[in-house]
């Protein structure tokens, strides 16, 4: 249970919606703009997380790495993969203040994907562990996407 005000919860939800919307619209610069300049992003299988195994699927532990992920998707891989549309569905399940306008937020996610031929399937499901800073704009100081889907059903191009 969260005892945060409706205004704060709404600002946190807006941040999450902005994040997933940038991914579902394939806007990688928009994705980067969700992060603070000391931000980090990790996408890791729940199996590794549970066994203290550090290997991730994506490990952007500094802002330069976040910038490089934009380059991977928009420059390195462009034109080599069969593209797909994602739809992220999220539900906030917990939030707490940790000081300095920063909030720890836990959110379930479920991502469907539709490749060019048009059949929709589940890409991955799991939960986000986020630190969100509420300033003039709400930004992610860190985002960790833990995937229940230990065996992903395909290659993954876009961040989760």
């Amino acid at each position, binding site marked *: 249970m969260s005892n945060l005000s409706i205004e704060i919860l709404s600002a946190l939800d807006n941040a999450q919606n902005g994040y997933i919307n940038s991914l579902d619209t394939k806007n990688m610069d928009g994705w980067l703009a969700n992060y603070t300049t000391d931000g980090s992003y990790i*996408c890791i*299988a729940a*199996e*590794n997380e549970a*066994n203290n*195994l*550090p*290997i*991730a*699927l*994506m*490990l*952007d*532990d*500094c802002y*330069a*790495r976040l*910038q*490089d992920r934009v*380059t*991977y998707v928009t*420059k*390195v*891989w*462009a034109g*080599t*993969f*069969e593209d797909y549309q994602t739809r992220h569905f999220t539900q906030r399940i917990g939030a707490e203040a940790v000081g300095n306008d920063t909030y720890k937020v836990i959110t379930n996610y479920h991502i469907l994907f539709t490749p060019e031929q048009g059949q929709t399937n589940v890409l991955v499901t799991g939960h986000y562990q986020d630190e969100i800073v509420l300033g003039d704009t709400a930004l992610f100081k860190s985002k960790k996407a833990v995937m229940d889907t*230990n*065996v*992903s*059903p*395909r*290659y*993954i*191009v876009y961040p989760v």
Partner: protein
Amino acid sequence: MNAPEKYSPLVRWPAKVNEIPKEVFFREDVYQLELENIFYGPEWHPVAHTGELPNKGDFKTINVGERPILVVRGDDGDIRTFYNACAHRGNLLETRVSGNAVEFECPYHRWLFDLRGELRGAPGDDDFSPSYRKEDFGLPAIRSAEFMGLIFVTCSDETPELDEYLGRVKDALAITFNGDGRLKLLGYQKVLYDVNWKAYVDNDGYHAPLLHAAFKLLDWQGGKGEQYSTKNGHIGFESELKVPKDTGFLKDPTLLQFKGTASSKGSAIASTFPITVITKHMDMINIRFAFPRGVGQTEVHYGYYCHEDDDDEMVQHRIRQSSNMLGPTGLVSMEDASIFHRIHVGNHTPGNVTFQKGVKHEDRIWYDFKQNDEAGNLPRWEHYRQSLGFNREEA
């Protein structure tokens, strides 16, 4: 009644050694034959590295073909391999993919097995069949052998000893394992590709340089190297290490550094028949445990490792590099992954797949290749063809 031709057990195998009939990539009857003759036949299959099971009681489950396997480090420190099926009525014994156990109890009728696979107790056994003896009902063991910590199993008694079986590819394996195989597990990336297992392995170890824009953008030319194959279908690649230049293309070039010591220099790929690819690129040590999930899917578990002697800085570097360079989301391999799907769909068309680059002969097999020759796959295909008993058409 004449069976329709597409159900004929005979595959028309072309006369030219660089042509492969596409029907072997999707025919269900061919797949069943592969399970029997290859996956359950006289071949060794890597199932774990000792670095994944450091402690007594550590276990791992995986498949060989479609058979579930249990790998356990016993209370005596020895690693044993079993079929992951209860000795009573065959219930899948362990459902977790890994963990630590003191014993294995089958929930169905509560038969209890110890870490060495011995049956410890079966409730109500005073009522069992006249010839029942507890000592006859241990877990079904599967033959195993080890090379530098890599544990192989085989379902056949006829498989040659592992050392002889691996042959020259041991050289490439030794490089990938930093010379001694004293590895520690860093974690896994797991993925299920929509591709027949043979198209997966055709396109995994072998590298298509033109596919990867990253190489060009980083001005990253592969070092000088060689590729060789063995008569029984293994492939080794060994090359000098070339570190990509800092072209300013990546904001964080530390990801591409090589921090290994001189003795660990070199890049290598070992591809063991039928389906396993093991690599060392820069500071990434990677074993790709793989098995078919039916004729049209292949599950791959990318295991990443560090070396027991690494300091903290080296371990952190390996974690960063491994997590961002290889696997289904990796900078230089996501494209490979996306090719697997497309190849599988494309292979449902009539005719043959053709290999061209590096093909010196069309009427016989040879074993030494240049680094980027796709012809390196041909000895594996020849071993495959012979394993399944398909006859080559007359030229």
